[in-house]
């Protein structure tokens, strides 16, 4: 069993018990525990189930690399899945649930998958679920979806808050172990501004557990002294619980600080995302121990040797009572010695090296430990807990020489530097044969804007594993970073570290070396995703030679731990199977973040009301007070309709259309884009931007225009008014104002920079109110101030003047087909004019109308709407708008593109009107079907619906659509199958349903 022991536990406070629950069971630990150490102290070795086979999973590591001990933390709005127990600090009241099991952790139905493991090899999904075809949609996919995903997504809105924090530093040191401390100190002594971040709550990393001496002191004493020195320096910022998540271009670094995870009652944000710019970055991120690949290495109770040592020294927890240590290097002897001194029975040290180790082995032997050299684990037995170990010769197929009953196994396969942050921005690696590791290649470091390296790895992260070398390397990295950042490092000596020398390790990727297949099928590489040695070998046999392909085929390293334990073992296995050298196989790509970071931290404050700015017209408040149902349009909110008591939304829209057509309506059109284009070359410029001629427009007049991209596709439309010889006012769509303005600027600045033109987006400087309907003129006349008669202000002209004493500019333009005045007024007076119109309009029956009534009225008139009739693939010629395309102009944006063969193809679908046979409403987006089926067995299509409404004016459903040879097929009836199973029939008609001759707007 695993239990708390009476001695050790440097990080826990035995005077402060802490209560928590695991799967509802009450447990207790101490302040300073991690959830993992507290679970082990309560003999809870089984903590989860694996993804594919639902195999029992125990705690295997003690830090961020943990693949197994993932739990759901908290309840309700504070629930979070997939949290690593090893990095979760214990607090009073913590509640954790294990994952990926049903009905319970102890008894799991899915574990039956494990019995079928030989039928679920690498690439199983690809191989099995292809045939028969219909089975995929109806049987396989629903089944896989149900079993997919680790943990449960939270259901409630996150109750916590998060924030972003910006920081600038000369040198950022990531990792607060002895290397990070030494590097930060030597950099800071030069005067450079230094930020040192550490992902855990403690400084010093592994050194206090691993032992040795620094400058004649215990590591702990040196750490305390160095921390004091750093804290006293004003140019140094220290942050524990802050992980370096990613290193990006030009010195951008993301830090992820967990502020209150360990103390949820504390006020303030839960996580803080540090957005850092650094001149130089030092990654002092340490190294991670590798598991050994032997059969049963996934049975709960098999643990990394360094992790077992951590639990004893840091938390006073012995993960087992009778332990077998298995290793290919000297470091594991530290664990054996630590266990022995803590009173744990160490049954064997199995050293796979025939000649064994060095001084540490001798020390272990002198303590009376039995050490068997050239020996290996043949197989670990046990279900939810290790029960016994079969021992064999490393050089063999795994015939057991003896079996030893035990309850825990400590394994060590050597160390891999944490090269993630080095690699994020392009740092390359080199293979070190002697240490069997990929380490940063300083000759191929990530480079910054000046082409010089801006990242350096230090200490174990740089492949230096002995204490002395770590400190020398880190001290040098700090000085050199400071120098690169423009500071003069002090000529101080590096801290001197003394540790026992070590014998070389033996690279061992499979145990025993020639393990038979039944053993390889139980030798796990990726614990979370259930990838075994046999799976990688199978992938290699099936031709997956690239490590990136093998990763995706087998899912090796694709779990939430991203292969921190499995990566190197997996690619070494692949290299072996391919008969290739490890460096030629290479690694998969390391991508940020180093460990998962919360969505909350990424979003920061940008949620709820401040997620994005809300744009309000000057009349917004009036709409709100009058029951507007909002429709988001760009960042604006526009009234969709104004529902009155007793009305449905549909009723309201119908009333608004009828009232506008019969009496008078008011529309807040302030959101329409308004761009001033001014200068001697303004006309010439607009001739290039619009498909029609704008330079010939007379001052005082308006003209409708179309804008295309250089690809020929229609991107925007609107009315252009010529204000004077050199000034035009271009109206754009509501959503188009910003990007059309940017479009204009792009062409002016980058193509026609010698043209004398200025543009200004004045959308928000003016409110615009459309007064529409047969009584519109009477209403304006009742306000008084300017002549709005047909003679003084004919259709498609504009005039300046006053209305009710307010200066206005009135455009006689119409998007409804009715007599219509669009009145522009300075934004500050928009609300006043609206109020006066509403007041005076009461006598004429004025009612406001919303965007849906606007849409219906424009569709009744056959006017197109950008985004409905256009979708980025439609050209004006498709929409019957050839009348708005100048034949005289030599050039305009899109002209050449519209001459390309695909654009002039007579088979392009063209705009028509559609009238339903039964007067109903066609489903939006429905396709018109044609005879026959395509290669995928789907019905052939010959058109689609682009806009569809119930027209109260015509008392029937009307629609517009793009149809093959549409304009030549007037009167034909098309069939539109709906998603409701019904076939809707509609007749092809002219798209102008109402007032074809335009008599009503021109009065």
């Amino acid at each position, binding site marked *: 069993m695993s239990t708390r022991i009476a001695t050790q536990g440097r990080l826990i406070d035995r005077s402060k018990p802490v209560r928590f629950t695991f799967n509802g069971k009450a447990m207790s630990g101490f302040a300073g525990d991690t959830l993992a150490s507290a679970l082990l102290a309560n003999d809870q070795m089984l903590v989860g189930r694996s993804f594919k086979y639902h195999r029992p999973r125990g705690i295997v590591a003690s830090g961020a690399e943990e693949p197994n001990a993932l739990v759901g933390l908290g309840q309700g709005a504070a629930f979070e899945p997939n949290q690593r127990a090893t990095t979760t600090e214990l607090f009073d009241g913590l509640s954790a649930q294990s994952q990926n099991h049903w009905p319970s952790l102890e008894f799991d139905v899915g574990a039956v998958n494990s019995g079928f493991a030989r039928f679920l090899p690498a690439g199983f999904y690809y191989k099995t679920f292809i045939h028969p075809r219909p089975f995929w949609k109806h049987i396989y996919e629903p089944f896989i979806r149900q079993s997919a995903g680790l943990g449960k997504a939270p259901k409630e809105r996150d109750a916590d808050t998060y924030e972003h924090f910006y920081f600038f530093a000369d040198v950022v040191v990531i990792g607060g172990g002895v290397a990070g401390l030494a590097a930060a100190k030597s950099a800071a002594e030069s005067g450079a501004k230094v930020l040192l971040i550490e992902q855990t709550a403690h400084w010093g990393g592994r050194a206090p557990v691993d032992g040795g001496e620094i400058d004649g002191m215990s590591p702990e004493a040196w750490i305390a002294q160095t921390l004091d020195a750093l804290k006293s320096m004003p140019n140094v910022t220290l942050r524990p619980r802050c992980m370096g998540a990613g290193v990006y*271009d030009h010195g951008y670094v993301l830090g992820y600080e967990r502020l209150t995870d360990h103390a949820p009652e504390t006020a303030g944000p839960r996580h803080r995302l540090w957005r850092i710019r650094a001149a130089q970055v030092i990654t002092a991120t340490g190294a991670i121990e590798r598991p050994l690949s032997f059969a049963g290495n996934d049975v709960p109770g098999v643990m990394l040797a360094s992790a077992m040592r951590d639990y004893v020294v840091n938390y006073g927890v012995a993960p087992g009572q009778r332990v077998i240590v298995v290793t290919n290097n000297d470091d594991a002897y530290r664990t054996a010695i630590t266990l022995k001194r803590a009173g744990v029975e160490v049954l064997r040290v199995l050293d796979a090296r025939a000649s064994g180790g060095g001084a540490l082995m001798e020390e272990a032997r002198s303590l009376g430990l039995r050490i068997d050299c050239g020996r290996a684990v043949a197989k670990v037995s046990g279900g939810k807990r290790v029960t016994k170990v079969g021992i064999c010769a490393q050089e063999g197929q795994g015939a057991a020489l003896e079996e030893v009953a035990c309850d825990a196994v400590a394994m060590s396969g050597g160390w891999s530097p944490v090269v993630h942050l080095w690699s994020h921005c392009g740092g390359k690696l080199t293979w070190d044969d002697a240490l069997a590791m990929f380490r940063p290649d300083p000759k191929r470091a990530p480079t910054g804007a000046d082409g010089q390296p801006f990242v350096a790895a230090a200490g174990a992260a740089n492949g230096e594993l002995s204490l002395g070398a770590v400190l020398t390397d880190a001290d040098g990295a700090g000085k050199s970073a400071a120098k690169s950042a423009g500071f003069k490092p002090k000529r101080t000596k590096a801290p001197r570290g003394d540790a026992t020398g070590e014998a070389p390790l033996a690279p061992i990727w499979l145990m025993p070396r020639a393990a038979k297949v039944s053993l390889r099928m139980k030798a796990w590489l990726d614990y979370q995703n259930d990838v075994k040695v046999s799976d990688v070998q199978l992938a290699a046999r099936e031709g997956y030679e690239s490590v990136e392909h093998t990763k995706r085929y087998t899912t090796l390293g694709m779990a939430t731990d991203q292969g921190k334990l499995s990566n190197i073992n997996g690619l070494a296995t692949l290299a072996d199977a391919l008969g290739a050298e490890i460096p030629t196989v290479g690694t998969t790509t390391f991508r940020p973040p180093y460990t998962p970071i919360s969505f909350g931290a990424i979003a920061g404050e940008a949620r709820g009301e401040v997620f994005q700015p809300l744009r309000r017209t000057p009349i917004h408040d009036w709409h709100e007070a009058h029951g507007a149902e909002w429709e988001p349009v760009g960042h604006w909110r526009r009234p969709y309709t104004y529902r009155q008591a007793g009305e449905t939304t549909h009723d309201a829209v119908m009333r608004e259309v009828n009232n506008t057509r019969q009496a008078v309506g008011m529309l807040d059109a302030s959101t329409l884009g308004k761009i001033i284009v001014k200068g001697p070359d303004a006309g010439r410029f607009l001739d290039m931007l619009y498909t029609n001629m704008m330079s010939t427009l007379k001052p005082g007049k308006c003209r409708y225009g179309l804008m295309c991209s250089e690809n020929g596709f229609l991107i925007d439309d609107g009315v252009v008014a010529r204000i004077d010889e050199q000034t035009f006012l271009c109206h754009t769509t509501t959503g188009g104002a910003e990007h059309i303005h940017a479009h204009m600027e792009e062409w002016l600045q980058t193509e026609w920079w010698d043209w004398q033109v200025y543009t200004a987006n004045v959308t928000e400087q003016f409110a615009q109110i459309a007064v529409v309907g047969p009584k519109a003129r009477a209403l304006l006349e009742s306000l008084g101030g300017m002549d709005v008669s047909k003679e003084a202000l004919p259709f498609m002209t504009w005039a300046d003047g006053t209305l009710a004493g307010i200066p206005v500019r009135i455009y006689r333009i119409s998007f409804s087909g009715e007599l219509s005045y669009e009145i522009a007024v300075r934004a500050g007076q928009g609300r006043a004019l609206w109020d006066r119109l509403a007041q005076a309009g009461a006598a004429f029956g004025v009612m406001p109308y919303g965007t849906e009534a606007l849409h219906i009225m424009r569709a009744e008139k056959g006017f197109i709407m950008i985004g409905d009739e256009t979708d980025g693939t439609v050209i004006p010629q498709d929409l019957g708008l050839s009348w708005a395309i100048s034949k005289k102009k030599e050039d305009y944006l899109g002209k050449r593109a519209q001459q390309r063969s695909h654009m002039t193809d007579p088979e392009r679908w063209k705009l028509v009107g559609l009238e339903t046979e039964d007067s109903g409403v066609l489903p939006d987006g429905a396709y018109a079907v044609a005879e026959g089926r395509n290669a995928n067995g789907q019905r052939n299509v010959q058109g689609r619906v682009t806009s569809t409404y119930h027209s109260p004016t015509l008392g029937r459903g009307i629609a517009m659509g793009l149809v093959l040879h549409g304009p030549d097929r007037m009167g034909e009836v098309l069939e539109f199958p709906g998603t409701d199973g019904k076939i809707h029939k509609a007749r092809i008609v002219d798209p102008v349903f109402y007032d074809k001759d335009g008599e009503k707007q021109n009065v």
Partner: protein
Amino acid sequence: MLILHCPYCGVDAEETELSPGGEAHVKRFGPGASDEEFRDYLFARENPKGVHFERWRHANGCGKWFHAARCTMTLEVFGTYSAQTTEPPKEIRDAITAKRPGWTWREVE
């Protein structure tokens, strides 16, 4: 997250202030151009591993377009310059040649 110097307003702008505009020095073809010329103008772009010329707009800043010469592999920036030119100015070309001996502008093989 690149940092580029805006040659108009003088700010060292972070990528969040900038919007990218693809390859620089693409010559416009319009009516009268052959199908091949027009296709290449619209769609054919260089994708070099190395020295590249890009268009950027200081969108959340002064709003001006400018050009950047940089290395897509090392992220090194050789310089930024006005967009109102049809080819990189001499000082930019010299800066690149100094760092990448043998490099020439639109070398014809």
